[in-house]
């Protein structure tokens, strides 16, 4: 036993020393080759530029490593727009630069799949979008699905919102703040789909999330939806309606916001106080004064703040 412990200790140390030596040497080589890598990236970039203009060789220089080509394409994509950008993506696809990322999207390690999403999102060629859609549909990890959805949202490749909700299992699970962020980022481009979903039977957390998202579109035509949400029986939906009113900032919502200062649920009254303050509804002043003696400390605090923020101060 003692001999085994002794041998194992030295074996473990030898292994770790070998590993750290390799890592130090790798880092040292990285530092040493920084200039050479930069030169390779420049060569690759020049080659792609020549190919885009049609004056260069038909293929990228074979001696360049794929990583250098990928870096060059990534750099050029940031500078290009329109047909030049499409041509560059097509060339990168032709050179199969995305193949490693597409292969990594099937890795058993979530870490590798997440890294693959980064690359696929950055380039966004049709093959990349297709791979992201497969990840959204089939991945076992909800976090990876959400990352794929966020990438697709940026690339304009998300499936219809109803399907996205279903793929992210939002009918059964409570949406997180990241889900709200995702749908808020879609509100400007897909408001009609959100409105359609709001007209259907959906769970209260989902309804609240969609109200939050819709308000990011900044479309005043949605005030009716918010007003209907303000009359919802679920307090979290009413709260979302108040947040939406705050975000949209239209004074026409005063008629339904003011009565919510007397909502039976304290966190709705908190939202209502914050909303009247933000929108400057001075007619709320008497009610706010009453709320400064509310049973909930948070309502008292927010009512006091609202009074001080309304035109004329707390007087």
């Amino acid at each position, binding site marked *: 036993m003692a001999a085994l412990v002794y041998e*194992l*200790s030295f074996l473990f140390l030898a292994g770790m020393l070998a590993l*750290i030596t390799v890592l130090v040497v790798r880092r040292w080589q990285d530092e040493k080759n920084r200039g050479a890598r930069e030169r390779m990236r420049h060569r690759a970039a020049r080659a792609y530029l020549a190919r885009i203009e049609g004056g260069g060789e038909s293929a990228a220089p074979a001696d360049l490593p794929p990583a250098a080509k990928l870096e060059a394409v990534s750099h050029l994509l940031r500078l290009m727009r329109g047909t030049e950008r499409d041509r560059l993506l097509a060339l990168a696809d032709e050179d199969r630069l995305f193949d490693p990322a597409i292969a990594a999207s099937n890795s058993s390690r979530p870490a590798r799949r997440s890294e693959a999403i980064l690359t696929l999102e950055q380039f966004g060629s049709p093959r990349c979008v297709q791979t992201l859609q497969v990840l959204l549909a089939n991945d076992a990890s909800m976090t990876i699905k959400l990352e794929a959805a966020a990438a697709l949202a940026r690339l304009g490749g998300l499936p219809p919102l109803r399907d996205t909700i279903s793929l992210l299992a939002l009918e059964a699970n409570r949406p997180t703040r990241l889900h709200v962020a995702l749908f808020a980022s879609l509100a400007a481009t897909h408001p009609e789909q959100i409105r359609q979903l709001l007209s259907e039977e959906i769970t209260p957390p989902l309804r609240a999330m969609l109200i939050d998202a819709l308000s990011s579109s900044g479309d005043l035509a949605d005030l009716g939806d918010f007003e209907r949400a303000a009359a919802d029986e679920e307090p979290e939906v009413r709260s979302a309606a108040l947040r939406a009113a705050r975000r949209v900032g239209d004074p026409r919502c005063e008629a339904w916001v003011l009565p919510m200062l007397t909502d039976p649920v304290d966190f709705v009254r908190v939202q209502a106080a914050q909303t009247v303050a933000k929108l400057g509804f001075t007619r709320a002043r008497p009610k706010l004064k009453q709320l400064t003696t509310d049973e909930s400390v948070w309502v008292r*605090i927010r009512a006091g703040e609202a009074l001080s923020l309304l035109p004329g101060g707390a007087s």
Partner: protein
Amino acid sequence: MNGEDAFYFAAEAVFWLSLACFVIVVIRNLVSVIQLAVASWAFWNRPRPTARLIDLWSKGVDLAPPISVIAPAYNEELSITQSVKALLALEYPEHEVIVVNDGSKDATIDVLKRDFELVPIDRPQVAALQVTRILAIYRSRTHRNLIVVDKENGRKADAVNAGIGFAQTPLVCVIDADSIIESDGLLRAVEPYMLDDGSLVAVGGAIRVVNGCEVRGGSLRKIAIPREWLARFQVVEYLRAFLTARVANAELDSLLLISGAFGLFRRSMLVEIGGYRHDTVGEDLELVVRIHRHCRENNIPYKIEFVPEIVCWTEAPISLAGLRNQRARWQQGALETLGTHRKMLFNPRYGRIGMLMMPLLVIEDVIGPPAELIGYLIIPAAWALGILSPELALAFLALTFVFGTALSIGTLALEETQLRRTPTAADLASIAVAAIVENFGYRQVNLVFRLAGIKRYLRRETGWSAVPRVGFN
């Protein structure tokens, strides 16, 4: 009992004591190697931090939960302005800084009043968790998100409690006065809350040693390694603590400690449990243990997570006296926490916290340090007297010196493959050398310092031993 019997009895006692020390050291190393393996597994599967998700939500101010950063300050007149400016400049959509002047004897409050144009305000305290008197509350005219609470002197726990009481945001970030937060530290630390279903109550983050780095205006400008060997050894220790132990414990839902230098908590949970305790020098450990206890006793679903990315930098002591005070205090704090929550030990009601983590705390903090130290003395002596086989004596030394070194090097390798925050290959090599050298002297000295903590605990000393700081470059 004749002389021969007495010698035989003494030899037996020495033999069994040696064996006990050996077994304890084996267990401690086994735990460390399991933690290294679990942490490697966690890193292997964990997506590397990316800016994408942060990009997604940080644009919407409403979506990021507002945070109050609570910074206790005591006699910080020389550095308080820069520190507060750095806190105000943190990248976060909506954060408030609450500086709590804990009865400073110098001009801390006057400097704050002058540099930030403070005006007295009447701000309600949501929960009075402090035991000392609040003297005044101020708001800055130049920075609307800066609140200063002036109070009588208590200790850090009391100052933080006062700050928690005045916080009105769902999350509070508790830091030390000398913590240097990474510019995107709040964004990183809050990310678990963005995916939270409502059960997440606390998030800890990795902390590194700032000695040797370039710090200007309270912000980190350039990462470097410390010149002093004592600080370099602590770099290795921090890597072991944050990249293996904490990552592994968090992976197993058993995180027991969120460092006082940086912790992001749900404010309502802190208020519910009454904030930090005032009667312990290990208030950060005690707080997390109490959160576990409270949630388990009341069947509250809860999660405590850890972010392995660096969120904060802290100054390590570079004198043996400073190190002694710090380590003795940590040791005393751990023992006080164990004493307070002894009911949780081996109690299945507390799940893996009671059945696994608390017993490990006993091994690590109660019997581990004296066992290793006694082992250094008694095992070679027993071998010399022929009581113990040379194989066992060599195995003990191999475990402490050789295995310990391998663990440190393994952690450094983990850092290099996953986070790569050591600036250059030369620095990496220097830290690797420190990881080897620390096992020959530094480790043993630390054990002695921990014995001092045990002594303080037994004497029920309540004083706070200051750790001298030299300031930043």
